[in-house]
C-alpha cells in the first residue's frame, strides 16, 4: 500500500549540474505503437508487474493480510467444526469454510485495491497514466488484473494455511488453475466495483466509508460461511445475486470436489467481471477532472 507520492525529504541536496547529454540516441525515436488486442494485454501485464514489484520491495502487506483469514480458520472454523452448528453435508465445517475464506480475503483485497485508485489520483500517479496511450478500458482491465494477481497471492497463503490445519484440498494442477481463474475473475469484479464507486463519489473519505460498509454485507450475504439452504428467504435472494457466492461455489467444487455448478459459476463471474470493467471504464473520466 505504498501508493503515497514519493515524499520530498527536507533539505534537498540536488547540486548536480547537467552535463551535455550525448547518450540520447534511443530517446530520439518514438516507439512503434502496438495495436488491437495487444494494447490491453500489454497494459494489464505492465500493471500486474508493478504490483509484483511492490510486493517484492515490501512484503509486510502479505503477512498482515494473512492474519484475518488465519483467525477465521483457526477460531471460527475450529470452533464451529466442534459444535456442529452449521450443517455441511459430507465435509467437516473447516473444509467447507476454507474456500469461503479464500474468496472473502481475495474480495477484501480487491475492494481495497479499487479504493486505491483514489489515492493514485490524488497522488498524480493515475493522472500521468491517463496521459499515456492507454485506453480507459485497458487501464481498468490492467488494474483489475493487478488486483487479481494480488488476490491470487493471498489465496495461495490461505490455501497453505488451510492445508496446515488439515483441510484436505485437491492438488490437481488443472483444478488449481481453475481456482486461479475464479479468483482473478472475482477480484476483477470486486475491484471494478470499488473503482466504479470511486468514479461516483470521487473522494477518499466517502469511498473508505462505502468500502467498509459493503464488504461485510457482501461476505455475509453469500454462501461463504453457511449453505444457502439455512438462510432466510430474503438472504437467499441476496446470495443468489452476489457474485461472491458463485466464486465460493466454484472454489468449493474445485478444491474439495463437492457438487458445484462450475459452468454457471464461471459464466456469472466472467459476465460480472466484464460488466464491472465496462462500468468502471466509463466512470474513470470523472476521476481525471
Amino acid at each position, binding site marked *: 500500500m*505504498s*501508493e*503515497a*507520492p*514519493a*515524499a*520530498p*525529504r527536507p*533539505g*534537498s*541536496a*540536488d*547540486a*548536480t*549540474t*547537467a*552535463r*551535455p*547529454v*550525448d*547518450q*540520447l*540516441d*534511443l*530517446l*530520439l*525515436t*518514438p*516507439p*512503434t*505503437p*502496438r495495436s488491437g488486442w495487444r*494494447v490491453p494485454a*500489454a*497494459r494489464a*501485464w*505492465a500493471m500486474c*508487474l*508493478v504490483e509484483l*514489484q*511492490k510486493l517484492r*520491495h*515490501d512484503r509486510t502487506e502479505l503477512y498482515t493480510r494473512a492474519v484475518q483469514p488465519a483467525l477465521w480458520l483457526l477460531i471460527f472454523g475450529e470452533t464451529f467444526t466442534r459444535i456442529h452448528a452449521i450443517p455441511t453435508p459430507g465435509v467437516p465445517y473447516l473444509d467447507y469454510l476454507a474456500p469461503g475464506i479464500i474468496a472473502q480475503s481475495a474480495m477484501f483485497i480487491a475492494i481495497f485495491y479499487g479504493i486505491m485508485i483514489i489515492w493514485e489520483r490524488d*497522488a*498524480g*500517479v493515475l*493522472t*500521468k*497514466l*491517463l*496521459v*499515456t*496511450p*492507454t*485506453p480507459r478500458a485497458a487501464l481498468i482491465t490492467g488494474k483489475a488484473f493487478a488486483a487479481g494477481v494480488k488476490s491470487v497471492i493471498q489465496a495461495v497463503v490461505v490455501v497453505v494455511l488451510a492445508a496446515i490445519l488439515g483441510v484436505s484440498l485437491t492438488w490437481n494442477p488443472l483444478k488449481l488453475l481453475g481456482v486461479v481463474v475464479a479468483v482473478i475473475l472475482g477480484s476483477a469484479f470486486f475491484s471494478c466495483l470499488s473503482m466504479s464507486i470511486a468514479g461516483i463519489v470521487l473522494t477518499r473519505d466517502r469511498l473508505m466509508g462505502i468500502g467498509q460498509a459493503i464488504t461485510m454485507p457482501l461476505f455475509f450475504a453469500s454462501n461463504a460461511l453457511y449453505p444457502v439452504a439455512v438462510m432466510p428467504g430474503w438472504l437467499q435472494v441476496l446470495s443468489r445475486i452476489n457474485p461472491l457466492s458463485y466464486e465460493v461455489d466454484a472454489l468449493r467444487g474445485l478444491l474439495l470436489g463437492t457438487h458445484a455448478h462450475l459452468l454457471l459459476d464461471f459464466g456469472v463471474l466472467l459476465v460480472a467481471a466484464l460488466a464491472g470493467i465496462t462500468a468502471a471504464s466509463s466512470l474513470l473520466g470523472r476521476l*481525471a*477532472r
Partner: protein
Amino acid sequence: MSDEERPRADANADVGAGVNGNAGGGANANENAGGGANGNPTGAETEAGADPGSLTPTGADAATPTAADATRTGATRTGATPAERPATPAERPAPGSPDAVVCAGLSYVFGETRAVDRVDLRVGAGEVFGLLGPNGAGKTTVIRCMTTLLPVPSGKVTVFGHDAAKEAMAVRRLLGYVPQQLSADGGLTGRENVTLFARVFDVSRKERAARVQQALEAVDLLESADRLAKTYSGGMVRRLELAQALVSAPRLLMLDEPTIGLDPIARTSVWEHIDAVRRATGMTVLVTTHYMDEADQYCDRVALMHRGRIRALGTPGELKADLRERRADDSEPTLEDVFRDVAGSGLGDEGGDFRSVRSTRRTATRVG
C-alpha cells in the same frame, strides 16, 4: 511593417498564435483572430509562424482583424528572427511542420469558476514556451485540456495537427507530461518507475532496458536508480518524472510547474536538465511557472495569463522592451515588472507567493 519596428509584445501581434492580448485590445477583435487560427492550423499560417518565437513585429494596431488577415495571407513574409535568441538548428523546425500546439478559443468552466476564458495560443515546434501566471490563473487547466485529461468544451486544441478532442490517443503518444504535483510511485524504484512508462508507451522489449538507462542518465539519476522513489528528495522526484516523460521520445514535453517547491539549487538543476535534453533532442517544451526569473532565462517565448485570459505574449525581451517604452524611464524592467504591469498591481487574494520569489529572481536577471 518593417522588421526594424519595435515589436508590440502585448497586443495581438502574433498572428499564428492569435493570442488574446487583452492588455491593449478589445475582446471582439481577439475572437476574430481566434477564429482565423481555428481554420487551418497546419496550413498557411505555419509559413508565417514556422520560425520558433516568431513574434511578428507589427505596429500597435496589429490587433485588428484586418491587419491579422493581411499578415496571414502575406505568406511570402519570412518569419522575423527572434529579438534576442537566434535559433539554433535544433530549435528550428522543419519547414512546413505543423505547430506543436494550437489552442483556439479554449474556454473551461468549473461550476461557477471561469478557469480558462477564450484562450488562443500557438506553440511553435521546437520552442520553449512558458505559460506564466499567479495561482489560479488557469495554467493547469489549459495544460490539462491539451493533455486530453479534460474535455475541450468550447474551442479547439490541436497537438501537431491532431485534434485533442477527437484523436486523444494520437495526441497522448506525442506527449511527455509532468503534472504539477510530485507524482512518482514511492513503492517502486526509480528504474521501475521509468520502466513502467516505457511499457505503457509500447517500447519494445529489446530496447526497453537501454532506453530506460538513457532516460535515467539524461537526468543524472543512475546512481539512485535502484532505490525506492520514496527515499528521493523533491528535486530527484522531479528529475525522475522527467525521465518518465522522456523515455517515450515525446515531441512535446508538458511540464506543469516543474520547479514548484524546490530549493534554488534543485530548481537550477531541473532546468538545466530540461535545457540539455531539449538541446539534444529538439523537442518542444511547454512549461508553466510562477518564477519569472526562470521564464526569463529559459523560455523562448512566454504568455502571461491572469484570471483565465492571456494578457501578453512575446519573447521575454520583447515584453520587457515594450514595458520600458511605455514607462518611458531609464530603469531596466524585469519580467516580473511586466507581470505586475499586466496583471495589475494588486494581485488580490490569489496572488499567493508571487512576491516571495522576488529576491531569488534578482540574481538571474538577464539582459533585457
